[in-house]
């Protein structure tokens, strides 16, 4: 009691009491946002309990999985991986120049600022949206999926690539410059060797993500396993849905493991 009183008299208006008031305000705000979103999202936990019989029946419909059409599903899954491969490769080809042009230690501000904004735009729009747009342009099918992944992934990789470039050691670059090399040679000999391990690692990581994304862009008609998945869900064929999901999980897991292994040896 006696020790606490002087502390308050030293700073009666601020310090302790003000910060506790502030944190109370923040907590109130957080709870307010949660309550507000609860309403908007129409969260009804009672439905889970009330409809538990439905849920059980629904879940039971998934088992046993129906692998009758596994050949078709696997071949569609391979198409999905092929979409991801080309979406990623085209993105890397574009992300290298765009990444370099959005690095502040390579390009002047009047170049890297607009390029960065362009890449922001490519990244901001989800690949599903791009897929729907490209379907209009090139028709239904895997190619629309490739284009969608290409644009979106270019935006992501360009940002990651340029962050790696901005973190390089400038001294070796100056060493190359001192020999009379031109700007492109400075980049090829001084910059690229330094960022290569990170670039490869980012690319593999995006390839993993793109296999997952490619299985979704199919849902809007852009080819691959997504088309099949959409069909079986819409026809309430949950045993087949389960089989398709298991095939996706198996492929994604294997690809993740392989690329994790490659990235580990690179770092």
């Amino acid at each position, binding site marked *: 009691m006696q020790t606490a009183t002087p502390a308050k008299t030293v700073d009666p208006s601020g310090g302790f009491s003000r910060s506790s008031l502030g944190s109370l305000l923040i907590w109130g705000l957080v709870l307010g946002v949660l309550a507000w979103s609860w309403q908007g999202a129409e969260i009804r936990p009672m439905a889970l309990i009330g409809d538990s019989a439905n849920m059980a029946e629904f879940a039971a419909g998934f088992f046993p999985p129906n692998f009758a059409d596994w050949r078709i599903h696997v071949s569609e899954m391979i198409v999905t991986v092929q979409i991801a491969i080309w979406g990623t490769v085209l993105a890397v080809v574009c992300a290298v120049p765009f990444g370099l042009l959005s690095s502040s*230690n*390579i*390009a*002047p501000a009047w170049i890297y600022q607009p390029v960065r904004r362009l890449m922001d735009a490519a990244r901001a729009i989800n690949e599903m949206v791009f897929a729907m747009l490209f379907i209009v342009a090139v028709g239904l099918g895997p190619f629309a999926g490739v284009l969608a992944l290409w644009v979106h992934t270019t935006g992501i990789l360009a940002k990651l690539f340029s962050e790696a470039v901005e973190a390089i050691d*400038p*001294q*070796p*670059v*100056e*060493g*190359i*410059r*001192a*020999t*009379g*090399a*031109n*700007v*492109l*040679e*400075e*980049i*090829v*000999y*001084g*910059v690229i*060797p*330094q960022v*290569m391990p990170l670039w490869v690692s980012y690319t593999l990581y995006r390839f993993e993500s793109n296999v997952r994304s490619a299985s979704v862009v199919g849902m809007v008609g852009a080819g691959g396993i997504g088309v099949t998945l959409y069909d079986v869900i819409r026809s309430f064929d949950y045993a087949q849905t389960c089989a398709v999901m298991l095939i996706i999980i198996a492929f994604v897991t294997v690809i993740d493991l392989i690329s994790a292994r490659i990235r580990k040896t690179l770092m």
Partner: protein
Amino acid sequence: MHAIHVSGLTKTFGSRRALDDVSLTIAPGEMVALIGASGSGKSTLLRHLSGFVAGDCGEICICGEAVQNGGRIARNVRDLRSHIGFIFQQFNLVGRLTLLTNVLTGQLHRIPTHRSLLRIFTRKERDLGLQALAEVGMERYAFQRASTLSGGQQQRAAIARALVQGAKVVLADEPIASLDPESSRKVMEILARVNREHGCAVLVSLHQVDVALRYCPRVVAMRDGRVVYDGPAAGLSPEFLKDLYCCDPEAASAGAPPAGAPEPVALPLAA
């Protein structure tokens, strides 16, 4: 024609005069030491000579061609740099490239860009690189990554890079400041041989006066951005040297390489 000709070079960083009306002439085939305390302007002068930094006023010519004049760097500075071998305190090799590739970058200025960007070198070009590595005693390590080698070995490879370049002028910025005594001796001897056998003019900034006196017949001393002595090494009196390093006691104790703090380097690639 002079190998290096500087007249009236001045540079201010903020309110500090880094270079104050520096004039200097070095003939082809000379070996000159540049001495002075930390912050006396040695590095700054060398960086101006190869056109990394533009001065405020004054002129610099290398082999008779202007690198910069009145604060403007020449348009063809990249061509001019190919005549200048620059040896850095931190070697500035690319760690993830092999020693040979690092050395081969010395001839990028002679190779058409479409080939250099694909890193395609002809047999003849590779042989030139290997020959240069042999000259500095590093041919055994030609296919090792530069980062796996010691400082002294990297510095010798950096000299090989300047040899491949076919440089007529070699500028060395504290080349032995981060090396042990034995590596320092080897590097200095190679520099002296480059001067002797290839006829390169060598301007080497050094922190250790004894090394400067041993290898260089001529010494240029700087203090607060000004040239305060330019003449034969024999003409330096102990009193003068004591005075030169008055604010830098660690360098006065000859032999011990001080941890020379490199000056901050801003490096926009588009320069």
